[in-house]
């Protein structure tokens, strides 16, 4: 249970960062922290106590394996997360070229 709680705290740390930070890069880092807390959660729900890597070994038919599906999901989600982060960073580079700042308070052309 403690592990799940720690994982949730990590999620909240990320959320706090997204809400309070003013630097665009720090917002993206906070978003990544949140993302990885969710990945950790997915990996945790597939964990089986004393489980082995899920490669079936015909020699020991009653071995305990961890659940492979969440691992596959985490791998997919990591790739998607990479794409999102790369996209965000490239937008930040463009924003810096246009506005010459990374402070979110000074990037406020759109209102109302």
């Amino acid at each position, binding site marked *: 249970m403690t592990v799940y709680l720690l994982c949730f705290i990590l*999620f909240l740390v990320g959320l706090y960062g*997204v809400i309070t930070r003013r630097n*665009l890069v720090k*917002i*993206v880092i906070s*978003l990544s922290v*949140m*993302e990885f807390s*969710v990945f950790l*959660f*997915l990996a945790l*729900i597939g964990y089986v106590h004393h489980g082995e890597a899920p490669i079936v070994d015909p020699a020991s038919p009653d071995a305990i394996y961890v659940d492979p*599906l*969440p691992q596959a*999901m985490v791998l*997919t*989600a990591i790739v*998607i997360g990479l*794409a*999102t982060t790369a*996209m*965000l960073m490239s*937008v*930040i580079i*463009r*924003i810096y070229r*246009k*506005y010459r700042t990374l402070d979110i308070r000074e*990037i*406020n*052309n*759109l209102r*109302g």
Partner: protein
Amino acid sequence: MNSLIPLFVAVPLAGAFLTMILARYLKNINKYIGLLVMLMLAAMSLIAITTARGDISVCKVGGWEPVNGIPIGIYMVLDNFTALLLCIINIVGFLSIVYSLTYISRYTSESNYYALFCLMVAGMNGVVLSGDLFNIFVFLEIAAISSYALVAFGVEKEQLEATFKYQVLGGLASLLILFGIGLIYWKAKTLNIADVKAAMGSSPDKVHYMLIQLLFLCGFGLKAAVIPFHAWLPDAHSSAPSPISAMLSGVLIKAVGIYVLIRIFFNMFLISNEIAVLITTLGALSMVIGVFLAIGQWDIKRLLAYHSISQMGYVILSVGMGMILLARGTNPEIASLAIAGGLFHLINHAAFKSLLFLNAGAIEYRTGTRNLKEMGGLARYMPATSATSFIASMSISGIPPFNGFFSKLIIIIAAVMGKFYLLALIAVIVSIITLASFLKFQRYAFYNKEHAGEQRNLKEVPFPMVFSMVVLGILCVILSLVAIPQVRDIVLTPAINVLTDPQVYTSTILGI
């Protein structure tokens, strides 16, 4: 029928990659590929809706058959509700790409545009077709990431700011959805929507169940821009190039937001009264706040974007009313009437809102401004734009004989019959304010006195843009026919049956 299902995703994906490869060697090939892909998809979606006829066809990707009755492969499901959404996505997509042929030539790197457009369509088709939660997440991200790039396509200050906001909130939404999916897998040990319904059983763990529902409501609510989560929508939809605004407002928020919400709350969860009331409240709030935010806008595209929030409120409201009535279990006929109103309004909104965004794009193309105060007298120079935008404005404000009138009428009748008198009153008032707002748009853009000297050399936009606008205008009128019972039985009724009778969906897919 089964063989068509994978093509809906495969064709646009192939189109996207072919565009990127071939555009290096052959000039202008990108346009033809984009056009051909979307034409094929539009034709296929029409075939899908006419042949679906209430059947649920399942395509098991890779041919993985279920083991001991437990589905192990990825399932793609085509039922009438999906076919309806496929029609909206691909027909609006086709018309947007025809419009783009001339509109987008002002921008550099056109081939990227067509490739991203095809990717976005592939993502949306995948979301509506997949019968598996994680697959929905993957396709949703494909659609979302390509739409982030398309919003920033102009790479000016506003576009970049809007896309940053959109990406951070969109990323947050994806995380909430992924978290919800993890929680479902924890308890149900499956991700297939039909199988989750069966595995969760009739008496699930209350707190856990509620948490999942709230996470999904927040996640997909953010994607659909329901009111407390709407902050990104007006920026993103008004900054994007106009055909993309039409796709985002007309299609994307429906396919990845509203569609998934409706699908999982009807076909996966047991409908509970609390959640139904919450959804109805959110819908009513979106309707009212959206229209009040819209009325003070002078930027045409921002005005239209706020109206999108308000009109989506109608859809969510009527679906929510249907859920409340189904949860009470007293009068299922009125529940299906309310859902019918919601789905009908969903189709209509796709037609008139994308038309309005295309009109706004046409005005911007010729006058170079989006500010209503700087326009005036355009009706003389741009007759086609003016006429189609008049049709669309009257449709969205619910004036007969255009389509918006009939869907709003059904929603209001359902509200009165279900004894939600307050909601019916709100719906009428919001409709009147919408009319006021669109009369302002019409007056300032097309009929006001023109600014002297500035607009001498204005003329109608090029033919591809006029073609898309006129086709959408005609659609706005003929969609009224869906109100006729014979047409409704083909288009709407089977879709509603899928939603109101989740047992059929579950048992068909699991093959019980």
